[in-house]
């Protein structure tokens, strides 16, 4: 019963009002690995799978640091489960990319050598345990909203991988909700202050995560035209705000009017625009933890190089 409740909660976040509408001609033709596709399409599908593979692998590093600092054993177990899930998602996405000709090694080497960009939210770390709950909940819910939309995309192996991933994001959602909620209900005043601060720090980062505001030409975006990007950035942002702001409000978080509020007249969410110059700088020059995460991957590649090549020689 309890588990059903948890899953139901995560499902409500994922629920898409347009679900089932397949009248969009962009999304009508879907591809299997062996189908004839243009080289442009193949490369775009490989890029989206590689990009997500990297995001899954790097995205856990900020959590990984807290395993040894978790305040109790159950929290440590839950954190480990999440980390293992995310690394598993990285592997699942790597398989999709590999079948399109991009090796997992290439994905990591491209990152280490600075050829690929990392999602803005993964350039940071956590300064306190209290910061983790609200931040993880904002991250997970944004991922669920994003992935649910992408499941209507046109590359079927990627869609199937997302379905597996989405289910586990539901567990993470509940874990994060529980943590964000626990601090608000049983934490000290100082802990609540830190959690509130985390919420206000991470909302703009997540608003930026959905990408720049739609302009008049978003329908000319090739990923959009190919049906690998399904919804517009603004549509996803609005959907996410609509689902999550009430959840945070109910937990006792204060939502500053200037940061986000619902405009009852237009029925849309109004929010302070993220500092796009700063976001762009983070993406090109790297945020506070970027260098450290790159170094983690570089060390891991070096450390395992001998074993990897020996294993592959045996397999060949």
């Amino acid at each position, binding site marked *: 019963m309890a588990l059903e409740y948890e899953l139901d909660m995560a499902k409500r976040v994922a629920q898409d009002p347009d679900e089932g509408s397949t009248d969009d001609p962009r999304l009508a033709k879907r591809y299997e690995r062996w189908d004839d596709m243009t080289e442009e399409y193949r490369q775009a599908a490989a890029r989206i799978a590689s990009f997500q593979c990297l995001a899954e692998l790097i995205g856990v590093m900020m959590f990984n640091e807290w395993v040894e600092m978790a305040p109790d054993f159950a929290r440590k177990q839950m954190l480990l489960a999440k980390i293992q899930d995310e690394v598993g998602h990285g592997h699942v996405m790597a398989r999709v990319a590999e079948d399109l000709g991009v090796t997992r090694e290439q994905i990591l080497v491209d990152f280490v050598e600075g050829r690929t960009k990392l999602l803005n939210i993964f350039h940071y770390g956590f300064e306190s345990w209290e910061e983790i709950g609200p931040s993880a909940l904002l991250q997970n819910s944004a991922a669920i909203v994003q992935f649910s939309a992408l499941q209507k995309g046109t590359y079927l192996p990627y869609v199937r991988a997302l379905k597996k991933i989405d289910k586990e994001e539901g*567990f993470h959602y509940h874990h994060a909700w529980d943590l964000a909620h626990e601090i608000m209900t049983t934490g000290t005043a100082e802990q609540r202050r830190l959690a509130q601060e985390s919420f206000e720090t991470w909302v703009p980062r997540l608003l930026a995560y959905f990408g720049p505001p739609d302009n008049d030409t978003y329908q000319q975006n090739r990923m959009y035209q190919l049906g690998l990007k399904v919804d517009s950035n603004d549509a996803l942002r609005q959907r996410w705000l609509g689902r999550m702001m009430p959840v945070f409000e109910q937990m006792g978080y204060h939502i500053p009017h200037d940061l986000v509020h619902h405009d009852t007249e237009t029925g849309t969410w109004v929010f302070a625009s993220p500092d796009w110059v700063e976001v762009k700088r983070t993406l090109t020059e790297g945020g506070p933890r970027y260098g450290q995460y790159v170094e983690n991957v570089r060390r891991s590649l070096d450390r395992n190089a001998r074993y990897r090549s020996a294993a592959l020689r045996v397999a060949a």
Partner: protein
Amino acid sequence: MESGGDATAFEAFARFGGWDKPLQHVGSVRAADPELAWHAAKEAYTRREKCLALWVVPRSCVIMSTGADVTALLAGGRMTYRLPAFPSARRRARREAETAVEAEEATLL
């Protein structure tokens, strides 16, 4: 059809929920040897479900259908005589035909 190729890719199959349930394809892993592949599949695909069986198969051993086979695979649906509704539809058609013949005969008499 085509061979799966790719010697270090393994396809994973699992039985979830009960021994009477079929093994279903859950995804694939990459590993340098079959035992490592099994462990990788266990970690990636059987994390919370009630999993009762897990198989991994080297992709190179799998004969896989491709888009070109779909027409043949769907052919069953065109063979209406295999479907459960076929006998009753046939009975109805025969009865209608008999009634039509009888009616025609009646006009001839």
